[in-house]
């Protein structure tokens, strides 16, 4: 009995390590053959991630960044300027199936934690002209998105700005499936669709409190 269980355990371990090796090889391949603006020490990109090689020169991954399976990073063509369009700071962990679409700039400071299925998008598509079919891709200008250090975005959250810059202050928490379209100060807990401020950190009391208290 115990030998059977042991065999299963070994089998599973070997499958897990195949996936790990594939991810390791993928990270090495990306580091050496893709023109990343920066590819930090210890950064790990799962082999199922979708990052275009032409776009990678606009992407900056810090040290120890982890991109989970199915992450999609993309930079819209037509964006100009020398600075990278997607900056993921050191120690950030990007959850499964996260999507980051940049036209202007998306910056994640250090130690930002993204849950699964998060969307961060810094532009929108022109919808106001009815003659213009959606398929003619005319992205509106949008703004820059800055997510400061130590934030945590819950599963399915959407951070998207249509017209102006958007900043989420440090140590903020965005609830699951929240849709955030405006800036929030540091130490906020944000939730809902559209997102509202639910809690904020009281420095004197040293605890999280409802904003009107």
């Amino acid at each position, binding site marked *: 009995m115990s030998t059977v269980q042991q065999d299963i355990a070994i089998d599973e371990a070997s499958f897990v390590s195949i996936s790990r090796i594939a991810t390791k090889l993928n990270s090495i*391949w990306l*580091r*050496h*053959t*893709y*023109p*990343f*603006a*920066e*590819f*930090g*020490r210890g950064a790990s990109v799962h082999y199922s991630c*979708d990052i*275009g*090689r*032409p776009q*990678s*020169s*606009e992407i900056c991954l810090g040290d120890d960044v982890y991109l989970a399976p*199915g992450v*999609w990073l*993309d930079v*819209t063509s037509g964006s100009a*300027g*020398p600075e990278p369009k997607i900056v993921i700071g050191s120690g950030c962990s990007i959850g499964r*199936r996260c*999507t980051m*679409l940049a036209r202007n700039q998306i910056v994640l400071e250090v130690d930002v934690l993204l849950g699964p*299925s998060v*969307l961060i*998008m810094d*532009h*929108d*598509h022109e*919808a*106001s002209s*009815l003659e213009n*079919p*959606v*398929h003619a*891709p005319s992205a*509106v200008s*949008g703004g820059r998105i800055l997510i400061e250090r130590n934030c945590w975005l819950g599963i*399915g959250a*959407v951070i*998207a*700005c*249509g*017209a*102006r810059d958007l900043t989420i202050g440090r140590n903020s928490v965005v609830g699951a*499936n*929240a*849709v955030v*379209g*405006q800036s929030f100060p540091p130490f906020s807990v944000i939730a809902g*669709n*559209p997102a509202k401020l639910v809690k904020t950190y009281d420095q004197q009391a040293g605890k999280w409190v409802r904003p009107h208290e």
Partner: protein
Amino acid sequence: MSSMPEAMRHVMRDPRSKTLEDPLSLVTRLASRFRTLWMSWTYPFASVGGEFRAHYTCDLRRSIAPYVRIGDSVRLDRDVWVNIPVLPGTNEPVIVFDEGCKVGKRCMISAKNRIHFERNVVLAPSVLVMDHNHAFENVNVPIKSQGITPGGTIRIEEGCRVGFGAAIVCGKGELVIGKNSVIGPNAVVSRSVPPNSVVAGNPGQLVNDLLVNDLPAADAR
């Protein structure tokens, strides 16, 4: 930082220099191309248009193909799931994609009666479109063995865009998303929407001023 030779890195980091696609991506592109051709030639679709493109990870079973009609230039992205839980008795198509529809990554389309995407509808990633539901009335039976409700029909009219993670579910009757409407990200829509409207939130509500304000209907490209 990379251990690439310094001179080479300089060349590659110039943002204006043209970077070639990763040669390894040819494998997935060929696989998708092959899957599309295989589907177009051997699946018994109600009809399938030219320039149909499906990613090789798409989940579309052969048994439902007679009830799926695909127009010209339809594109199904990675991990899209097109499903018909109960095959209908009639020969009417159940899922119809008109010309130019784009379905984003991980979208799930499940139809029992009829889901019709008119021309140039764009679904962003992770969208759910479902015209039926699980029956749950009997508390003594596990929900998974209670089958599905009769449901209704869904029609998404020309030029609509559905934002990231939105859910369009129809319990009964006919749900129509009017022409050129925009559904915001993570919205849940279960009622009909007039043409040229913007819907956001859960439950989905009309918010016509969204076009120029903060919240864009984030969508796929």
